[in-house]
Every structure is written in structure tokens, then in C-alpha cells.
């Protein structure tokens, strides 16, 4: 009997101790300012140069810093760079780093780190590779300064170093930056405003960041990715939730503070919650577009591709994908509307929706009703509904559509096939991209032609030449003129078919203040009351 009583007492003591420990933990956590967020996707890859995944880019902005960054007007501003100058012959760029920059292992940031980082980024990123193609050498002058010497003057050096879309040129310690660009780095050490907490990282589920006490922010106010990255919280716990409805319920109940990308069809529920703010986060947003295969009939003929321009109504796609007309806009511009390179040249077909003309053009191109293969990634919340609209649109033009449903991963392999559609190839698929990722001829991978062409393999030598001219041109007025010509040629040859632009929203609890509007969600400048 005594033994039983003793055991019971011991059990109660253990339970009481556990409760006390838990309460202590809770108190300790309660004193810290923690933001619990639901990110745009599951973070598995931590290296922003190894992948272009946006979730990895967003993670990287927490941990790493950049030499330059785009402000709210999408103009490059120095970030890690204190001063910089360019030689009179426009060939040598010299950069000096800000004082006080430290890595998270408390060693100073050196110019050699930046040189190695630019080289690694330049081996992977499209704009980076273009820059490296024009670069004669890049070298450290001393611990704080380095220079980039060009073979010939180009107009996009600072634009490239300030780019906000993947791959962003993040600066890493030299030992990490010397990693082969096709191999993922094994350490997450940056000089950004937050430290990555390795012990709490569960790939695909949870990532935790804590304020880096050694970070010295710039004096200017925060402006998109530029300006002072002043951290006003202690910790960010980012936990991915696969079920969109449950994430929304959790935000409504206050279990989480932010949903970085709530499902479009559930946004209206959140808008009714007085404790939640719902607003567009990315000033420019995304673009949706249709790719056609230029190698195989019927879209190997220019007239058949042009038929699609006449037979497509952008609003139909945007209404299905987004629904809220305040969040989408019709746009025929290959480099996007609202960007510095917006042009509507040659876009008459978009204004004059005419399915009959589309049918006539298809007939003129020799289309005789053979089925075309359309790829439909059914696990993608944006591309699948858009694909359904595309199917109906094509059928309205008299095209026989054979829809191949698959998951997105399968589509990434299938779209790379140059085989005829009946032998594992394809004719049509849809995809989307951030506006910041398509805003000029070097960034816009999808608009490349001939040897560099993306899937669909368009080839018009005029586009290759004009793109090169744009890269070399230093005069903004002449650049604008080249963009107009490019736009016209792109639409004439139908590199791809723009289906309009849309903006995603973020949703957060009202007690958060100071959220910065930007393509990635930043957690500096944010206060939690």
C-alpha cells in the first residue's frame, strides 16, 4: 500500500514539474515578440543560388543581404554597399562596403566574400550569366572594396546586382560562395537581419529565425527591399500548412499571425474577419501566360499562333483564377504593365477579341482539326483553373483539344520534350511568373529566342539581336525604343501569349504594423503589439 502511495506521489510530482516547466517556457516565450507565419510554400532548399524557388528566395532575404536592392519605385539603391563609382569609360565599377557588416558567426564581411558570391550567382542566374559574359574580371581591392571590370560598357550592372527576383545575388561568406553552383550549400550563415536557427529547421514544415543582434541597418527608412532593415521582433516561426482552409481558420483564431499567400477562393472569408487585414502585398504581382510549341503543327505556323491572340479573352482567365477584378488587370505587354519596360505596341489583337477571325487564321495555317495536346497540372491552384479556361477557349476556336492531366512535377519533365505531341511532346501549356521576373529582356527567360529559347522553342533572330542591343544600350530613351520594337516582334511572332496580370494578397492579424509591400514578404520593420 505504502509503495503504491509513494508511486502515486512521485507521479504527481513529475506531472506538476512538467506543468511548471511548460508554464515557465510559456512565460519565457510570452515575453518574446514572436511572429507565427504560414509561408507561401514548404521550405526544403536553403540555398537561393541552387534553386529559383520563391520560398527559398524569401527565406534568403531573412538571412542574407544584397549589395543593392530595389526600392518601392523599383529603382536600385545601395544596401550593403556604402559608396560606388563607375569609371569615365563606363568599364570599371568600384564598390566599397558599409562599415560594421558582420556574418552571423561574428566574423566581418569582406570584399572577397562578395567577389566569390557574385561569381557563384553569375554562374547560375540568367541576368548574372549575361553580366559575367560582359565581365573581364572581378577582384577584391582590399577587405572593404572590390571592382568589376567590363569588356564593353553595358547598361544593366546595377540592375542585375539589385534584382529582386530569383536568383537574387545574395552575399555569402567566401567559404560558402566557393561551393559549386550546382551543389547546395551546407551552412546557412548570412549577414542579414535574421539568423537561421538550424536546430529548429524541419525541412518542408518549419523554419525559425531570430533577430541578429549584430546587424547594422541603413539609416534610410525601409522601402521594399531597400532601406533600413530594422528588426522590431525577436523571432519568426514559419510553419507551412498544406490545408489552405485550416490555415485561414488558424489565422482567424489567432493561432498564427500571418498567411503569406492565402488561397484566392478563401480570401473573402478572411475579409469578413474584423481582426484580420487582407491586402495585396506585391505591388506588381504575377503574370499568367500560355506557351505554344513552335516546333510542331499547328503552332509551327505563325498564323496559327496569331489566331490565339484573336481568340483569347484575358478577362476570362483572370476571373476564374482570381475572381476579384480589383486584383487583376488585362495586359498585352511582354515585359509587363506597370514596369519601366511596359509597351503595348502591336497589341491590336488583344483589344479586338474575335473568335471568327481566329478560326479563319487557323484554317489559313492549314489546321484541319487534328487534336492538339494541352498539359494540365491539376495540383497547381492557379495553373489548373487557368488550363480549364484555356481548353474551352481553344475549343471555341474550333481546336480539338486533348487534355493531358498530370501533377506539376510531371509537367516540368513533359514540357522539356521536343518530341511530336503524339509521342510524348505537347502543343500548349500555361505557366505564371512574377512581374519582377519578366520585367526586361534579360530577366524574362520565357521571352528568349533561338539557342537560348525556353520551352516552346521560338526562334526569331530579330528578338535575339534586339535583346542584345537593349543590354548594351546605355541611353534610357533608346532602350525604351528598343523595348517597343521587341514588343512588336514578340507579338508578331507570338513568342508566347500574355493572359494578364494579377496580384496575390497577404492576410495578417491587426496587431501587426509596418508590413512592407514587396514580392517577398519581409519581417523587418514589422511591429507586433
Amino acid at each position, binding site marked *: 500500500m505504502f509503495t503504491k502511495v509513494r508511486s502515486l506521489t512521485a507521479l504527481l510530482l513529475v506531472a506538476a514539474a512538467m*506543468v511548471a516547466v511548460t508554464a515557465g517556457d510559456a512565460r519565457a516565450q510570452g515575453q518574446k515578440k514572436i511572429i507565427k507565419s504560414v509561408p507561401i510554400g514548404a521550405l526544403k532548399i536553403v540555398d537561393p543560388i541552387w534553386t529559383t524557388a520563391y520560398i527559398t528566395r524569401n527565406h534568403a532575404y531573412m538571412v542574407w543581404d544584397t549589395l543593392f536592392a530595389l526600392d518601392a519605385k523599383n529603382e536600385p539603391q545601395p544596401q550593403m554597399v556604402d559608396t560606388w563609382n563607375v569609371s569615365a569609360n563606363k568599364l570599371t565599377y568600384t564598390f566599397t562596403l558599409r562599415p560594421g557588416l558582420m556574418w552571423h558567426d561574428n566574423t566581418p564581411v569582406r570584399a572577397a566574400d562578395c567577389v566569390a558570391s557574385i561569381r557563384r550567382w553569375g554562374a547560375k542566374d540568367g541576368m548574372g550569366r549575361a553580366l559575367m559574359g560582359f565581365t573581364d574580371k572581378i577582384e577584391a581591392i582590399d577587405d572593404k572594396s572590390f571592382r568589376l571590370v567590363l569588356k564593353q560598357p553595358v547598361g544593366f550592372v546595377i540592375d542585375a546586382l539589385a534584382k529582386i527576383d530569383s536568383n537574387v545575388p545574395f552575399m555569402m561568406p567566401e567559404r560558402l560562395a566557393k561551393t559549386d553552383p550546382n551543389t547546395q550549400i551546407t551552412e546557412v550563415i548570412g549577414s542579414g537581419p535574421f539568423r537561421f536557427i538550424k536546430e529548429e529547421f524541419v*525541412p518542408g514544415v518549419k523554419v525559425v529565425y531570430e533577430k541578429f543582434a549584430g546587424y547594422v541597418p541603413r539609416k534610410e527608412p525601409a522601402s521594399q527591399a531597400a532601406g533600413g532593415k530594422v528588426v522590431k521582433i525577436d523571432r519568426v516561426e514559419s510553419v507551412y500548412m*498544406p490545408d489552405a482552409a485550416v490555415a485561414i481558420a*488558424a489565422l482567424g*483564431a489567432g493561432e498564427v499571425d500571418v498567411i503569406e499567400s492565402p488561397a484566392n477562393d478563401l480570401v473573402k472569408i478572411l475579409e469578413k474577419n474584423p481582426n484580420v487585414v487582407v491586402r495585396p502585398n506585391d505591388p506588381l504581382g504575377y503574370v499568367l501566360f500560355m506557351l505554344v510549341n513552335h516546333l510542331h503543327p499547328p503552332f509551327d505556323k505563325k498564323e496559327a499562333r496569331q489566331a490565339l491572340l484573336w481568340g483569347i479573352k484575358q478577362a476570362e482567365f483572370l476571373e476564374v483564377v482570381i475572381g476579384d477584378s480589383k486584383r487583376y488587370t488585362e495586359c498585352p505587354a511582354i515585359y509587363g504593365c506597370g514596369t519601366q519596360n511596359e509597351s503595348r505596341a502591336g497589341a491590336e489583337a488583344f483589344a479586338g477579341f474575335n473568335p471568327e477571325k481566329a478560326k479563319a487564321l487557323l484554317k489559313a495555317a492549314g489546321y484541319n482539326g487534328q487534336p492538339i495536346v494541352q498539359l494540365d497540372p491539376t495540383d497547381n491552384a492557379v495553373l489548373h483553373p487557368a488550363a480549364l479556361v484555356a481548353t474551352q477557349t481553344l475549343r471555341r476556336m474550333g481546336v480539338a483539344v486533348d487534355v493531358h492531366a498530370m501533377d506539376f512535377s510531371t509537367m516540368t519533365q513533359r514540357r522539356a520534350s521536343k518530341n511530336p505531341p503524339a509521342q510524348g511532346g505537347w502543343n500548349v501549356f500555361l505557366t505564371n511568373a512574377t512581374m519582377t521576373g519578366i520585367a526586361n529582356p534579360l530577366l524574362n527567360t520565357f521571352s528568349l529566342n533561338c539557342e*537560348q529559347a525556353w520551352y516552346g522553342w521560338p526562334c526569331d533572330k530579330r528578338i535575339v539581336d534586339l535583346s542584345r542591343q537593349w543590354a548594351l544600350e546605355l541611353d534610357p530613351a533608346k532602350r525604351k525604343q528598343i523595348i517597343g520594337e521587341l514588343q512588336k516582334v514578340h507579338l508578331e511572332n507570338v513568342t508566347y501569349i500574355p493572359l494578364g496580370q494579377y496580384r496575390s494578397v497577404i492576410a495578417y492579424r491587426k496587431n501587426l504594423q509596418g508590413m512592407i509591400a514587396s514580392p517577398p514578404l519581409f519581417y523587418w520593420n514589422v511591429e507586433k503589439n
Partner: protein
Amino acid sequence: MYRYVARRLLATIPVLGVVALVVFGILHFSPGDPAALIAGDHASVEQIAAMRAKLGLDRPVWEQFAAWSWCVLHGDLGLSIFSNQPVSHLIAQRLEPTIALTLSTTLFTVLVAVPIGVIAAWRAGTWIDRTVMGFAVLGFSFPVFVVGYLLIYVVAMTLGWLPIQGYRKLDDGLGPFLTHLVLPSLALGISFMALIARITRTSVLEVLNQDYVRTARSKGLAMWQVLLYHALPNAAVPIVTIIGVGIAVLIGGVVVTESVFAIPGLGRLVVDSILSRDYPVIQGVLLVFAGVYVAINLGIDLLYVVLDPRIRY
């Protein structure tokens, strides 16, 4: 007995070998390209090819299988293509939530389903029996995610009694650990409970007509004593069998429950890995699942000996 166990354990080796071969074959001959997913939309064809080569995905499939099998035989499940972390580490990170969910569901289910199954058998043909069987039919009819959403809406959102989502480790405290498991266990356990209740009722009903039960009752034993000491032990073999099978089914069922309740378990790991074609992770997790199934079956076989002394191996 020991020889039997040793024989069964040895027999798991070819089973796991076949599982490994089949899983590897299905994965590598199905479409999808992890290199293209990693490189992203802005990558060129050459960059994707370079990535594929770096990951070793351009080698012949038999060569990849041989290399992977060699590592597995040495206790190394490889590295995740995406996170670059050891598969064994990823599995270890996700094991606790899945074990906790499976055990809590099993415990809760058995504690409820066996008694109501026994009572239904005892009161066969009455309204109690019909109610239990009605519940069993309903339990089977509701998919896990429907029950999950209903529970979230009613218990968590409307009444505010329990958290909506998430998982807390036991290290975070017993209270948070248990409160985060209640709704997922209920959602996952409803159909399992229906199954066990039905099997228990059938088994006990059969036993209740046996002579030794009649003898026990004629000795003047109370009904609860007859049910507990005579009927239930003799009806236990099919019940234990179905519980064992059910646990194996539960491990498959946690995929949906883990997704609905945002529990970072093995189910989600395997689904995420399938969608991204993270071959080493899929292969590793499925090998673990196969091992667990084999172990559960072995455990059930050994339990038969305890429950029914007539069974000998």
C-alpha cells in the same frame, strides 16, 4: 518459439528487398524530374542537365539502384535530393508526431470500440445493438477529412475548446501535447472504431453461444464477469488481428489527417516527397513503413500464443 521469431525476422529481409525493388522501379520509371523542379522556370536546359548530372539522376537506373541498395545495406538511406539532409534524420524528425498520432488513435479507439462492441453483442437485437451498429455504418461512411473539418469547425472554431491545428512535442508539456492530439485522433479513429466495434460484436456474439459461457452463467457469475473473463478472452484473436491490421491501415490514413491538422509527420513527408520526386526520401520512408507492417504482423502472431495457448509455432 525463438526459432520461429528468428525465422520470421529473417523472412523480412527478402520482403524488404522486394519492396525496395518495386518502389525504386515505380518511382524511376514514372515521369517527373526533380532537377527541373529544383532549377526552376528560369533555368536553361543545360543547367537542368548539369543539375541532373550532379544529383546522379543521369546514370542508368540499375546503377542508381545498385548504389542505393549498397548504401541501405550499410545502414545509410541516403540524402534528400532537395534538403540535402540525411533521409534517416528527416524520418527521425517526423517519427514522433506519427507515432504519437497512431498510438493515441489506437488507444482511444480500442478503449471505446471494444466495450461498445461487447455491449452490442450482449444486448444483441436491442436498440443498444442497433445504435452501435448504426454508429459503425456512419463511422465507415465518413471520410477522415470530412470528420476532421467538422471537428475543427465545431470543437475548435465554434466552441474554442481545442487548438485548430499543429503539433506539440511531449517536451513542450503534457497538456499541449495531448490537446493537440485529441481532434486528429478522433478524426482518424472514427472509422477504425467502427471496424473494431463490429468485429468485437461478431466475435463476442459467437462466443456467447458456447457451452462454457452457458456454464459460467449457470454457476451464477455476474454478466460483466462472464463477458470480461470468459467471453472476451475467447473472442480476442480476431479482435487483435483487426487491431493489428487497423494500425497498419492507420499509418496510411495519417497522410490525410496530418495534412488537415498540419501535423509534421511521416505521412506528409512521403506525400511531399512524391510530389517533388525526392526519390531517396520516398524510398526510405516506404522501407520504414514496410518494416513497421512486418513488425506489427509478427507482434500479432506472437500475441496469438498468449491469447490462445492452443496455438503453437
